[in-house]
């Protein structure tokens, strides 16, 4: 029944967006939708109903387990903060004529719809249903990217749609394979994850490898894994920063979530040894490509986008290790990365508003005197940057440390390689921040620049996220550990 509450809320939000007139109203509706979703998710968690298995719909299309509610919580928190942030940000887009007033309805409608789709994807038991929701998130988020008055945005959106959708078709073929496997073993085929998990030990290895590889292609494209990552930097740079935060903090998780689910099935078959090699190699390649692309990067948002790719690679490596401890910290890393990255994109958005970066994706940012103009955003970037490269006190430090120590038990060369790559990525981020943020204008011409008056609604999400990650990185409650442990045991690792 609880699913119905989510669907009704989303539907109400869509209707309200359709009838509302001003930007403020539409924005408030999106904030409200995210807040209601968050309350519902927290209530579900605290009332101890999870896992929810029985629904009115036949054939058990939906279910809610701890992993689903975990991802949904991350998603709703980021959506809530992004919606608060979007008010000031979109106002400025309207003022500078980068966004037409006529597009506002489409923008917020797509926004509200996207949140519902993502949450439903996390609550799908049937993998084909999950596939459809994931595929729809591509289309809807492409609207959010293409919304600005710039042809480069359309370009980026079309590229995103084609790469993601074409790859997702391979996933569907993989799902049909999976269905056929379960049918050949147990007579009647199913794509329900819970049933597949129970049947998994009987599945033949050869077909499982083929099925996993095909499913992996599409979900890898959704989460920006090499070699399907090419859409990601462009889309993240082009999109309005509030949307970039969602793309990076939430949408990439959808792909990773799918990979975790399917890998959990494979983990119970004999195909696991081959599949872990696939995951490990593509994870290392992804981190490598991201690290070397970050090195010469002169554009802040692109740098942050490549850092997302790097973290997705790290998550794959964590999965490939496949010990319960590694899975625990991989899940933690998913959350740590999402919150940190959202904060970074929010800060980058403020700087973007201040300095109105040039049109091209590769043009150099022209930033100077950041501390004079935008102290909050500057500190957001510095602290967020420290957090994302994994400095102590921040949650990424913990997850990276434990994933790396677990990797040590699997393969020493891989660990050495990964350390070098992570160092390169961290160094390039540090180099960029130091060289940009220490630039102080000298000529009198630069004095003309007017400081962009950042609305409080754009500053607070950054501060909240920074506080949140500081708490996550320093305080570890037993409830949190028990919660993550439950997810690991539900995934049967």
């Amino acid at each position: 029944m609880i699913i119905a509450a989510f669907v009704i809320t989303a539907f109400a939000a869509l209707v309200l967006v359709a009838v509302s007139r001003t930007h403020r109203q539409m924005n408030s509706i999106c904030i409200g939708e995210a807040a209601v979703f968050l309350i519902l998710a927290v209530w579900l968690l605290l009332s101890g109903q999870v896992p929810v298995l029985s629904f009115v719909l036949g054939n058990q299309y939906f279910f809610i387990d701890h992993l689903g509610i975990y991802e949904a919580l991350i998603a709703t928190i980021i959506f809530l903060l992004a919606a608060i942030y979007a008010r000031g940000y979109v106002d400025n887009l309207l003022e500078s004529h980068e966004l037409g007033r006529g597009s506002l309805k489409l923008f917020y409608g797509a926004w509200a719809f996207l949140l519902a789709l993502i949450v439903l994807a996390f609550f799908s038991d049937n993998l084909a249903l999950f596939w459809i929701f994931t595929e729809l998130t591509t289309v809807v988020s492409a609207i959010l990217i293409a919304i600005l008055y710039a042809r480069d945005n359309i370009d980026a959106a079309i590229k995103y749609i084609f790469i993601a959708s074409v790859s997702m078709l391979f996933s569907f073929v993989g799902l049909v394979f999976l269905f056929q496997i379960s049918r050949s073993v147990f007579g009647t085929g199913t794509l329900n994850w819970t049933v597949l998990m129970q049947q998994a030990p009987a599945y033949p290895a050869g077909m499982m490898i083929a099925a996993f590889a095909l499913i992996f292609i599409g979900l890898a494209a959704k989460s920006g894994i090499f070699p399907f990552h090419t859409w990601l930097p462009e889309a993240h740079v082009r999109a309005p920063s509030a949307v970039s935060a969602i793309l990076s903090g939430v949408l990439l998780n959808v792909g990773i979530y799918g990979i975790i689910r399917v890998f959990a099935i494979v983990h119970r078959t004999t195909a696991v040894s081959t599949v872990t090699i696939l995951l490990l190699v593509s994870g290392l390649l992804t981190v490598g490509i991201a690290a070397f692309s970050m090195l010469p990067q002169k554009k802040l948002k692109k740098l942050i986008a490549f850092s997302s790719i790097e973290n997705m690679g790290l998550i794959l490596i964590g999965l490939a290790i496949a010990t319960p401890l590694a899975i625990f910290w991989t899940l933690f890393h998913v959350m740590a990365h999402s919150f940190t990255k959202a904060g970074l994109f929010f800060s980058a958005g403020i700087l973007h508003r201040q300095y109105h970066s040039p049109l091209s994706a590769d043009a150099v940012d022209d930033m100077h005197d950041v501390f004079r103009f935008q102290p909050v955003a500057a500190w957001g970037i510095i602290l967020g940057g420290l957090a994302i490269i994994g400095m102590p006190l921040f949650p990424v430090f913990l997850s990276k440390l434990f994933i790396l120590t677990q990797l040590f038990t699997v393969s020493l060369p891989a660990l050495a390689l990964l350390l070098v790559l992570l160092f390169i990525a961290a160094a390039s981020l540090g180099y960029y921040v130091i060289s940009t943020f220490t630039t102080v204008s000298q000529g009198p011409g630069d004095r003309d620049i007017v400081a962009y008056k950042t609305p409080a609604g754009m500053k607070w999400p950054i501060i909240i996220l920074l506080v949140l990650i500081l708490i996550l990185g320093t305080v570890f409650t037993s409830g949190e550990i028990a919660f993550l442990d439950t997810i690991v045991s539900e995934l049967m690792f």
Partner: protein
Amino acid sequence: MIDNAFIESVIRVLFAVVIITAAYIISTRNLITLVSAYAFQSLTLVCMALALYFHEGTPVLLAIAFITFISKVLIIPYFITNIQERIRIKRDIEFHFLSPTTSLLLSMAVILFIYLALSNILTGTAARDSLFFFGAVIGISLMLMGMMVTFSRKRAITKVLGYLSMENGVLLFGMFVTELPFIIEFLIVIDLIILVMLTTILSVGLDSTLEEYHDRLHRFHLVEDTEDGS
């Protein structure tokens, strides 16, 4: 009931027709015939679903045939033709990476490869000799041929047709395997329609190929420097 062997041979003929339309989609340069070829391909799939229904008798196949007919033979081709008239592009003669001839040769290799690979995977199982095997081979080949179209054409609107052709391959493959619930087939069609509408509308926004558009930006010095653009 109609003789099973007869229906099987009908389905085999339809397989051949599907491959021919796919080859046509790869090689033609005229956009209007491209859309017609796609509509015809979808119609072939409808016939195949009907033939399969007489063969196996699962009512879901009837529903699939119906919904495919409505969406892929009527709505989507109509929509794309409409858009094409609006942006006044009649021919798509530019290709990336692959010329039509190379694509055709490559697709022959692809079909052969998939035939061998799948017969390897499925040897010994009951699936090897059934229609499922041929459905899988033709479906996946059609998918890869569609992918070739998506990546070798320059205009977004032709890319869409490549994608749609891929999706037909998936449907074809799915028809021979699944008892997938109808609701899922239905949602996939909804997804497809949204995707087609969005991409075609966006391509009106572009109104030209992505590369041409970058060239134009360069010419007006709006962009200082791009890596490779596309």
